[in-house]
């Protein structure tokens, strides 16, 4: 196991994406083992193979891992990714094929796939495509499964797998059903340790479920606090939240010893409205055991908050992410590396 960083969440915001050399140098200097980009287009907008190969070569030279994402695989919202459509001249399948081929050309055969994006313009449930009123989430999952089925021969041709991220709109239960339908050779999981909380999943139980299919990760931690409607997730550096990494990492390691833990850190609350009948109706796979465990973890946080062992949530959230980013990343990296060392998860 190794610890790296997601490049599209602020780490190189000041540098931009034009020069991968300075970006990789920063990753190396910070002490990370590698990095992940949301798409090969962050290295080359036009997927220029010369540039992609040079990036791979430089990453190898520095001993850094390099991972990519593929983008949207839910046809109900692919229209929100116009850059990808342009890549295929309006043929979305061709666009993804080009991305898959370009990534494969530089040895990247595990790609993160997402089923939606966070909707900044809206509030409450409408930030998540799970709660769209014009189409049910079940229909979106069915369309996603069909689309990945269409992509399967292309993925097999390149020996590539799309790892569906446990994004904020989808549960691990749903991802596993898609894997079952399309095949674990072409669809896997990108385990986002923070997002599974938002969908009411216990991190350890969720890690156990996805471990055999998990080939990429987004590592983040969070505390949980009570609200009128249930509990709320506040993102924290790894080791400062409710996730029991000493349990979770060995579970993931057992199935995939080479797994990269890619830090995808940011701030923000997400509501987990266990007390709302409407919210629970949108989560048919929710189990009493996992809901109970999250409420227990929230109670633990509550006790610590009362004792001021955890900083008051509003005070912590008021500090801009940029001001804390490097400290948070360092603390996360050191914490996870220590567990890897202690548990011999090499």
């Amino acid at each position, binding site marked *: 196991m190794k610890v790296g960083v997601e490049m599209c969440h602020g780490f190189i915001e000041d540098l931009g994406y034009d020069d991968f050399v300075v970006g990789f140098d920063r990753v190396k200097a910070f002490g990370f083992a590698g990095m992940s980009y949301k798409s090969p287009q962050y290295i080359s907008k036009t997927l220029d193979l010369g540039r992609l190969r040079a990036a791979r070569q430089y990453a190898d030279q520095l001993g850094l891992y390099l991972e990519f994402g593929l983008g949207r695989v839910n046809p109900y919202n692919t*229209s929100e990714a116009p850059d990808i*459509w342009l890549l*295929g001249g*309006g043929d979305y399948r061709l666009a993804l094929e080009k991305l898959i081929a370009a990534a494969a050309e530089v040895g990247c055969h595990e790609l993160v796939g997402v089923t939606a994006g966070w909707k900044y313009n809206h509030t409450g449930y*409408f930030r998540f495509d799970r709660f769209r009123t014009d189409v049910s989430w079940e229909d979106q999952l069915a*369309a996603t499964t*069909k*689309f990945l089925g269409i992509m399967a021969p292309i993925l097999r041709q390149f020996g590539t797998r799309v790892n569906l991220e446990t994004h904020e709109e989808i549960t691990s239960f749903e991802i596993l059903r898609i894997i079952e339908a399309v095949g674990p050779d072409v669809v896997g999981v990108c385990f986002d340790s923070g997002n599974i909380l938002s969908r009411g999943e216990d991190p350890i139980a969720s890690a156990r479920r996805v471990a055999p299919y998990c080939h990429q990760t987004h590592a983040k931690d969070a505390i949980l606090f009570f609200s009128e409607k249930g509990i709320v997730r506040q993102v924290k550096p790894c080791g400062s939240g409710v996730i029991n990494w000493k349990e979770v990492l060995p579970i993931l390691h057992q199935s995939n010893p080479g797994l990269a833990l890619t830090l995808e850190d940011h701030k923000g609350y997400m509501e987990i409205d266990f007390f709302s009948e409407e919210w629970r109706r949108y989560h048919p796979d929710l189990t009493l055991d996992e809901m109970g465990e999250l409420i227990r973890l929230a109670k633990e946080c509550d006790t610590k908050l009362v004792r001021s062992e955890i900083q008051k949530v509003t005070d912590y959230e008021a500090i801009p992410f940029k001001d804390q980013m490097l400290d948070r990343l360092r603390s996360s990296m050191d914490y996870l590396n220590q567990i890897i060392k202690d548990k011999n998860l090499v």
Partner: protein
Amino acid sequence: MKIGLVVTTPAKEIGNFKDLFDSIKSMGFEGIGFRSLLQLSETLDPSELHAAHQYAGELGLFLDFGLGWVNPFTALTKPEIWALGEGDYCRAVERQLGAAQAMACKEIVGEIAGVKGPYRGRYAFDRFRTDVPWGEQLSASENFLLKMRPILAGFGMRIDLENHEDLTTHELLRLVEKMGDAYLGFTLDVANLTVMGEAPVEGSLRLAPCVHLVHVKDIFLIPTEKGLLRQMRPAGEGVIDWESILTEVYRHDPNVHLLVEDHKGQIQIDVHDLQWRTHFPELDEKEIAALLELAEKSRQRVQRGEIEAPESYEAMSYLNQRVQRLTSALNYLKSLRANHKLFDQV
């Protein structure tokens, strides 16, 4: 039967709506078809809309509106509509229906898809999307329309789905069967029928019983290696048999609104291409033959010197021809109406 003009000018460019209404009135049109209510008020402000409606009434102009997408696969491409519902698309549609009803509209245009600007050829049309088959888009649209039916019933309104360059008459008729003709009708765009390999008269007669709005533009067909190329002409200057079509449409709805929707732009209709044909499983060879005959008629009209040859016609800038084209279409339609006594029946 009244005759209006389609206006696509965005709200920001309209300025004072009174000037726009005055200019349309002075051209001799009897009404305006807006693509969206947002052209008159970006927030659907009741007082702004009321003022427009009142002024239109003073001038004796009717106002028609479009609702935007009823296809959840394309819905996300209009964020301005989502904003009306603060992320709840059904609510956004409901708000538009309410605002239109307050202006005495009973009929409102709905669209399943539209031409996608940056792409060329087939990929400009959602029918040819590679991430989701057209059949699934139809079924998602049907589900969405059924969801909106109680709201339409409450407002006493009907969505008139435009055939556009995507929907065949057969598909439209099946949708109306599911929805009921009290809630779903058609905005007939005769020229667009040909893009799907349907003959103008035959296709229009199939839809006529449920047509309540008509988009009017004429066509000139040019034979190509793969099939036909469609060029746009003002009504009466092409090869569409408007007399047969409009008398039949009038027979079913004497108060139908005709909306001149004029523009330039050529579309390829690949009726000889087997791959293209697989996207139109209900093609009728007799109608293809009718289209080929219209191409021959187009050629003869040029040969007889009745109309301009297609190459030189297309080379002229639309803006230079606009007023002449609109006036010519309007005069043609008015004289057809007078000859056949197709006036409104109260």
